[in-house]
């Protein structure tokens, strides 16, 4: 290979780059991130994945973002650090999520090389005929420990989740952090809440001094058994109101298990942005109610996840299901409207449902239809409203046509039905009827 370039390994630079990558993951994904040298990151996603739409979505997001910056990454989610480490390196798939509780069974089939053991030990084990994790797990412990030392079973137990392996999260000096060390471990929920408030107050003072507001806050609980528990909250706008932040953090306190006690707490503004101060308007006229809903948006977003809180906005498209887009709840007024002259139902089915119809003439609405087992006679109808496929989006829509009718049955209930195709040309659609929405 004549064009093959050779570069010396720079271990120091690699480690520094890995730490930078870890800080990036800390900002984006989870409060508990540590480097797993030489080539990995370990992330405790407990209670953090929901903000990214679930575990699998979070891993996909991670791999795609890394690929965009030229890093070929593989991600795995499992019950323990050791297992996730092994699965990420063992499979060829970019993303793998091991369902909770199945880690132990799936781990048995992996070669021993993935257990984070020294390579000489793996070689010796292979010479003795131990290839896979199951070979070791089925052997009595005594003789193996005598021969190879405690390391072998320590790594095995860590991977199987029998032995705890706390993550010491990475921190950067530029992060704004408030910390409280307790003389005696604390555990009562009220005490935790009180110190959360104190930390929020202290942090907000630091934020004011730096002229920034927090967009993402991590509250870490250092337990006496050296385990870590964490709460992560996000806000829509940079924020440094101690009362509001305390409220958001305390909403999540119930997810924390203090175990035998918490010996230290630290609150860290993982993501901080410049804070714009607003002038408070006063007026002699009657006081208008506080119509700022951003605090409510933050509370709800931390409860249901940011993706489940949105506003609708018009999108330029004639296809009904594409004419509506979702935007962030705090975005400014859009101002645009949908055309008011076209009838649109109040409920739109996620997928148009096929209906059986009795139609007499191709250009007319059907005389009756049955939907979900109920037959309805149509007494009044309006239409058709012809909608053409968007050929610039998908080739299959080149000739596609839908003819929409608004129909009313004999009870007065109104539905939005359409025929796929123009009733004449087979290339425009299958000419079958669907129900797409319900008018009130």
């Amino acid at each position, binding site marked *: 290979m004549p064009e093959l370039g050779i570069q010396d390994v720079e271990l120091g630079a690699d480690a520094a780059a890995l730490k930078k990558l870890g800080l990036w993951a800390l900002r984006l994904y989870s409060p508990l991130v540590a480097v797993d040298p030489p080539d990995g990151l370990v992330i405790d996603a407990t209670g953090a994945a929901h903000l990214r739409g679930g575990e699998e979505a979070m891993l996909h997001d991670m791999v795609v973002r890394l690929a965009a910056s030229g890093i070929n990454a593989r991600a795995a989610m499992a019950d323990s650090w050791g297992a996730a480490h092994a699965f990420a390196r063992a499979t060829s798939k970019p993303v793998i999520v091991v369902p909770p509780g199945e880690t132990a069974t799936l781990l048995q089939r992996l070669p021993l090389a993935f257990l984070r053991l020294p390579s000489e030990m793996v070689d010796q084990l292979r010479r003795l005929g131990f290839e896979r994790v199951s070979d070791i797990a089925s052997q009595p412990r005594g003789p193996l420990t005598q021969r190879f030392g405690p390391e072998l079973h320590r790594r095995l137990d860590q991977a199987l989740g029998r032995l705890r392996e706390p993550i010491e999260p990475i921190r950067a000096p530029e992060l704004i952090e408030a910390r409280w060390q307790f003389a005696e471990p604390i555990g009562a929920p009220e005490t935790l809440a009180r110190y959360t408030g104190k930390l929020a107050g202290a942090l907000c003072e630091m934020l004011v001094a730096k002229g920034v507001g927090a967009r993402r806050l991590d509250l870490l609980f250092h337990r006496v058994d050296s385990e870590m528990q964490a709460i992560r909250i996000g806000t829509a706008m940079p924020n440094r109101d101690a009362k509001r932040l305390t409220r958001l953090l305390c909403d999540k306190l119930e997810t924390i298990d203090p175990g035998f006690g918490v010996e230290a707490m630290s609150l860290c503004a993982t993501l901080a942005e410049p804070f714009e101060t607003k002038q408070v308007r006063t007026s002699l006229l009657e006081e208008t109610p506080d119509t700022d809903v951003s605090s409510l948006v933050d509370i709800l977003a931390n409860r249901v996840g940011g993706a489940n809180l949105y506003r609708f906005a018009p999108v330029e498209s004639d296809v009904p299901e594409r004419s509506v887009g979702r935007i962030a709840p705090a975005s400014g007024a859009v101002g645009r409207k949908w055309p008011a002259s076209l009838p649109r139902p109040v*409920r739109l089915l996620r997928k148009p449902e096929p209906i059986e119809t009795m139609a007499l003439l191709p250009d007319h609405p059907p005389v009756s239809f049955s939907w979900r087992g109920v037959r309805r006679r149509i007494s009044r109808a309006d239409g058709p409203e012809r909608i053409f496929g968007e050929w610039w989006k998908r080739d299959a829509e080149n000739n596609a046509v839908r003819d929409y009718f608004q129909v009313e049955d004999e009870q007065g209930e109104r539905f939005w039905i359409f025929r796929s195709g123009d009733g004449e040309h087979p290339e425009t659609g299958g000419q079958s009827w669907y129900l797409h929405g319900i008018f009130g």
Partner: protein
Amino acid sequence: MAGFLPFGLPEMDARLPGGGLASGALHEVAGAGNGALDGAAAALFAAGIMARTKGQILWCVRDQDLFAPGLEAAGLAADRVIYVEAGDEQTALACFEEGLRHGGLAGVVAEIGRLSMTSSRRLQLAAEGSGTLGIAIRRWRRQSDAVDFGQPTAAVTRWRVSALPSAPLAAPGIGRARWLVELIRCRAGESADFEVEGCDHEGRLALPAGLADRSAEAGARRIAGGRARG
């Protein structure tokens, strides 16, 4: 205690203590028949009420199937509504209460099935405290669950909206929707029912042309035993 939001129809407003829908209170709306499952007319009825308020609206749903252009046709501009997709009933109730308690919203609408006395009382207290208008759209997954609507709650009024055949037009086509709006329960008032035309583009109901010149008494028949049903 905040004010009252009139419907703008003297026949309806005369039936409501205060001359309109109480603002700092919880109200319930459900559909009848198929409407108990799809909640389409009930959603339009609620949207029409919210359209006549000023400020932001929070709309809590379990699973999203609302179509914003349809709500806008009832006068509720998309810019005013923030949606919460809660995923389950319990979270939807919690978000409902959070919204009512906040005080910066003009109103909160939530689509929920079961509503116990305890949780409805919490919602009512939250609405009273902040003066926010709360509407619970009662919507069930199965028709058999809809009997739950007979159970008492702490809501101030309870409405049922069902579709009626609309008036025929001179030309082929479809006119304004017509609803039977039943006031099943009303605290400090009596139950009544009204035949109205559905929301226009500003969220207002109207009396059908044929009935508009009838007296209020004839337009709003009293239901015998209506209070016992509530």
